[in-house]
């Protein structure tokens, strides 16, 4: 496969998808390189989550193509895309509620584990070694997310903010190159949001990844992202640096007068079930 060094990490060209008559996403393009933090904003129902679903293979795009390091991935299944290096979180949290916190992470390690069924059943030395390595890796990750104390609690018992952070930790456990965060600050209090911001900033350096961030809270988006794309009714209406976006009349109009700087999140009402 073509895999040149100058190929961008993630190259999305003109992807689109229609549900019945509704073009949920139309001609969406994006380039993302390592170390970049790109924001994706837009009013409710603009198609942001659908973009994530296209990028992660939940839906196959009708048009356009998605390349990861030059390799086309838009025909791959979600688990293959995860293997290729795109990890995500969900708008409405999707943890494995009965599994413990560390097991949630261990599931994500399954992808890179070299265990075999026979090894597991006979508990071969290699299997036990692999299991222990995975556990160490996950504990280290939990430590970074300040969740190590709760590693044996069921994920469902964590408080809301912790669950959101656990979802990010779980996504990182698949060793991704691109991390997609769908409204990570939703439902957090201002103090938690501040912590989240520094956490996300730390991820860029600590894990050598690129991040695509959907967020309604403008204070979070404007502070974090160096580039922002604005969607409305599936169409990209603006792309640029935060200052340009804030000044863009089309963006202001799309938000129907809602002040962009303070734009409080409207209720996330019709959250799509795959969100």
């Amino acid at each position, binding site marked *: 496969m073509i895999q040149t060094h100058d190929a961008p990490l993630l190259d999305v060209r003109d992807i689109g998808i229609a549900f019945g008559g509704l073009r949920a996403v139309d001609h969406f393009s994006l380039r993302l390189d390592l170390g970049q933090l790109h924001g994706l904003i837009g009013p409710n129902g603009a198609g942001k989550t659908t973009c994530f679903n296209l990028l992660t293979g939940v839906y196959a795009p009708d048009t356009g193509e998605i390349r990861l390091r030059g390799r086309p991935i838009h025909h791959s299944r*979600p688990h293959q895309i995860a293997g290729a290096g795109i990890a995500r979180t969900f708008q409405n949290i999707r943890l*494995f509620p009965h599994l413990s916190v560390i097991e949630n992470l261990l*599931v994500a390690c*399954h992808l890179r584990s070299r265990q075999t069924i026979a090894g*597991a059943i006979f*508990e071969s030395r290699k299997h*036990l070694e692999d299991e222990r390595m995975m556990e160490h890796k996950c504990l280290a990750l939990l430590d970074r997310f300040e969740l190590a104390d709760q590693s044996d609690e069921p994920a469902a018992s964590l408080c809301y903010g912790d669950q959101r952070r656990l979802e990010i930790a779980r996504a990182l456990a698949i060793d991704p190159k691109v991390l997609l965060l769908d409204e990570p600050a939703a439902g957090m209090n201002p103090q938690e949001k501040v912590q989240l911001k520094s956490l996300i900033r730390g991820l860029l350096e600590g894990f050598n990844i690129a991040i695509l961030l959907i967020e309604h809270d403008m204070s979070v988006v404007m502070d974090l992202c160096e580039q922002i794309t604005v969607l409305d009714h599936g169409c990209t209406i603006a792309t640029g640096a935060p200052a340009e976006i804030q000044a863009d009349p089309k963006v202001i109009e799309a938000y129907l007068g809602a002040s962009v700087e303070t734009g409080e999140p409207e209720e996330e009402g019709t959250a799509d079930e795959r969100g």
Partner: protein
Amino acid sequence: MIRESAGHTHRLPPALAPLAALALAIVLGLISRRLFGDYVERIGIDICIAIILAVSLNIVNGFTGQFSIGHAAFYAIGGYVAGMISYYASIQLWDSPTSWGSILSPTSINVVYQSLIFVIALLCGGIVAALAGWLVGLPSLRLRGDYLAIVTLGFGEIVRVLLQQTNEQIFTRSDLHAASRDELFPPPVGGALGFINIPKMTSLFWAVLLACACVLFAWRLKKSTFGRAMIAIRENEIAAEAMGVNITRLKVWAFVFAAFFAGIAGGLYAHEAGTQIGPGDAGFTRSFDVVIMVVLGGLGSITGSILAATILTIANEWLREPTHVWHIGLALLALRLMVQPKQRFRAIVWSLSAIAAIEGARSIAIRLQIDLGEYRMVIFALMLIVMMILRPQGLFGTHEFSDLLPRRRRPGRGFEVST
């Protein structure tokens, strides 16, 4: 052996559990009949078969969260294949299926050969059942929930009808050699009458050994990355897929493993003394028994499946000939109070009323000369309904016996590693 770092309980050597299982099987196999007689040995074998069925179905219904209600189909396939191999092997070798002995109490010089044939027959039964599981699993696991249930149910009925259409059995070596192609295909396994004279090879030794193998398999699977991935599918399929779990492949595997062990259970049943395998064993009633065991025990809990399989098998026998149970009930209550001191009062009230209800039902049945055994499906269904109301997660929920033991400590924050 690999020792866990400080703070972890060290692991037992991996070979310990299989050896313990072997020892248990030998001891039980040697003493049970002498101490308790044939009847108890037979119930013991039935319990082992039920445990294999319930634990294996739990891999599909409990781990991956699919809903298969056709487990008996694989059970019957395994039983018929294993029975066919050992029956016709002994017709061919000794011209008689009857001279078989047990490996622990040899009554014939051929015992080593016979045991070998028996084990091969069981394995082949398991493998053919697993193949059937794979064939059914591949297309149907793309279906969800109710649709999968209907497909598995239909598969069971298909197997039942196909078994009814099989040829008449062949009873002597000379007939076997003279048989025409039409008589050999479909296989000569007795049609609607059932398959008789299968050598009675199943002893408590084999039953316990294979039940332990099945439990150990499920246990280690559950603790491995594959088991966790399967459970992740149950917990949240979309998230599991997004985290890189190949859900189709794991679902098919779960189906294949479950079918394999169901096939083994069928083989044990086919070779059990006092039973006779027939097309009806592939049908819905048998499947339903297993589903009840898994749901009562708790979806995903191996401990729960073992317990429910044991209780229901004993209950089944009890219904045929109800004896006093209050002393057993009180013993169980005492055990419960020792293990779990919380909610004492509730436990006492519940247990006493359960004992009273069972004893009451028993005396009424005896007075009116009702055969409770005929009502077992009704009674089990009622148990299921009561359970769904009182404790919908089943006896053990998704937990295991080991969760009752003191928590293993894990190093907390500040633990050596850094990213």
